[in-house]
């Protein structure tokens, strides 16, 4: 019996330690987030740094975002046509594609691609800076690396994400137009007019932009945090990069459900 008791105590201690560790990590990341927000206004004064980051994060992601948007538009239009033709409702093809892109696919797929394309490079960069003791060197020169290195990247990510999501949705709708109107032969007037009739600028487009801003904050924050807290070894940076993608993607998907429930649950 005493042996059993020790086992129970150990299991209990393990559970408690695991819970405390998780809570500590959560609190730590929350403080990191507050720090980023605190340093962001100052980073705006170092505008060239932010501009360089927008160039690295935004411009360089443009090709993959546009290509994905086009592919999603193509496939969505083909699949929706296949489903709608049974009910003789092919003229609402444009509406279906448009709503799906503006509300969900645009922000979410852009965020997932962003986490893979830009988030990983941020994590690896910061992690290697840490491993190469560049961050420590900055601190020795009385330069806070959070203000000099992290905050401009944070702002760059937040600015880039909505722009990329808008481009994704636009290219997707153009892709759907190519398939639906030029290839299949849906009436072009119907394609556009039903969209304009049923899609609301503030409710659909506006909420989509709000979503992509939230995702921009999430993805960039996770990438920077994982880089900043990575083990300063090659294996540590590799693990941090993987964690960055996984955590950012899961956070985006979970947050998307919450935001959709808040924004679009009422008819």
């Amino acid at each position, binding site marked *: 019996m005493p042996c059993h008791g020790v086992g129970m105590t150990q299991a209990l201690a393990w559970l408690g330690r695991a819970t405390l560790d998780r809570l500590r990590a959560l609190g730590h990341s929350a403080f990191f987030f507050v720090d980023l927000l605190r340093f962001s206004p100052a980073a705006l004064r170092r505008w060239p740094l932010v501009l360089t980051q927008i160039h690295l994060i935004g411009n360089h992601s443009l090709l993959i975002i546009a290509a994905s948007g086009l592919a999603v538009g193509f496939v969505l239009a083909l699949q929706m046509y296949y489903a709608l033709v049974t009910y003789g409702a092919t003229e609402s093809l444009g509406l279906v594609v448009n709503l799906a892109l503006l509300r969900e696919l645009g922000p979410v797929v852009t965020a997932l691609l962003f986490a893979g394309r830009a988030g990983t490079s941020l994590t690896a960069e910061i992690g290697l800076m840490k491993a190469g003791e560049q961050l420590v060197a900055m601190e020795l020169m009385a330069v806070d690396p959070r203000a000099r290195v992290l905050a401009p990247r944070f702002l760059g990510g937040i600015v880039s994400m909505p722009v990329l999501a808008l481009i994704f949705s636009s290219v997707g709708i153009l892709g759907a137009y190519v398939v639906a109107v030029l290839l299949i032969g849906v009436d072009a007037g119907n394609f556009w007019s039903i*969209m304009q009739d049923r899609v609301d600028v503030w409710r659909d487009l506006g909420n989509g932009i709000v979503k992509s801003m939230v995702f921009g904050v999430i993805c960039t924050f996770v990438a920077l945090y994982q880089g900043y807290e990575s083990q300063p070894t090659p294996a540590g940076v590799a693990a941090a990069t993987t964690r960055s993608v996984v955590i950012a993607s899961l956070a985006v998907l979970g947050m998307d459900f919450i935001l959709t429930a808040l924004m679009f649950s009422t008819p």
Partner: protein
Amino acid sequence: MIKRSTETLVGLFVLLGLAALLFLALKAANLTGFSTESTYALSARFDNIGGLKVRAPVRSAGVTVGRVTAITLDPKTFQGVVGMDIRQGFRFPKDSSAKILTSGLLGDQYVGLEPGGDEADLVPGATITQTQSALVLENLIGQLIFNKAAESGDAGARK
């Protein structure tokens, strides 16, 4: 310190984003619609509103002149009260009637306004009382079966 080309490219990137926003707002959504135009309120009482939804169009002679803004139930008369916002430019005679119609066979339901012949117009906030309820398929089928049964009953009696 920062290359000129970087600035240009970032400018291009942001411009592309703005172009996308403009495209989505103007071409793929209804910014040019009359969501910003001034409207006045009307309401109508229906015995049955069927599947009418908020934001459904209000049409007269097929032309969209407004939107449904609210649907409530009058607790006294048990009628459905449909609130509508009509575009400021359109005034309808006092004895106009409202119907709930369906666009196409399976389409959405909308409110159809049929203008009457009265000299005076409906003032903002007025209620349309001459209404025709939505067609409920179950009631229609029920009536058809009832009529058929009555007919065959008559025929049987005559024999």
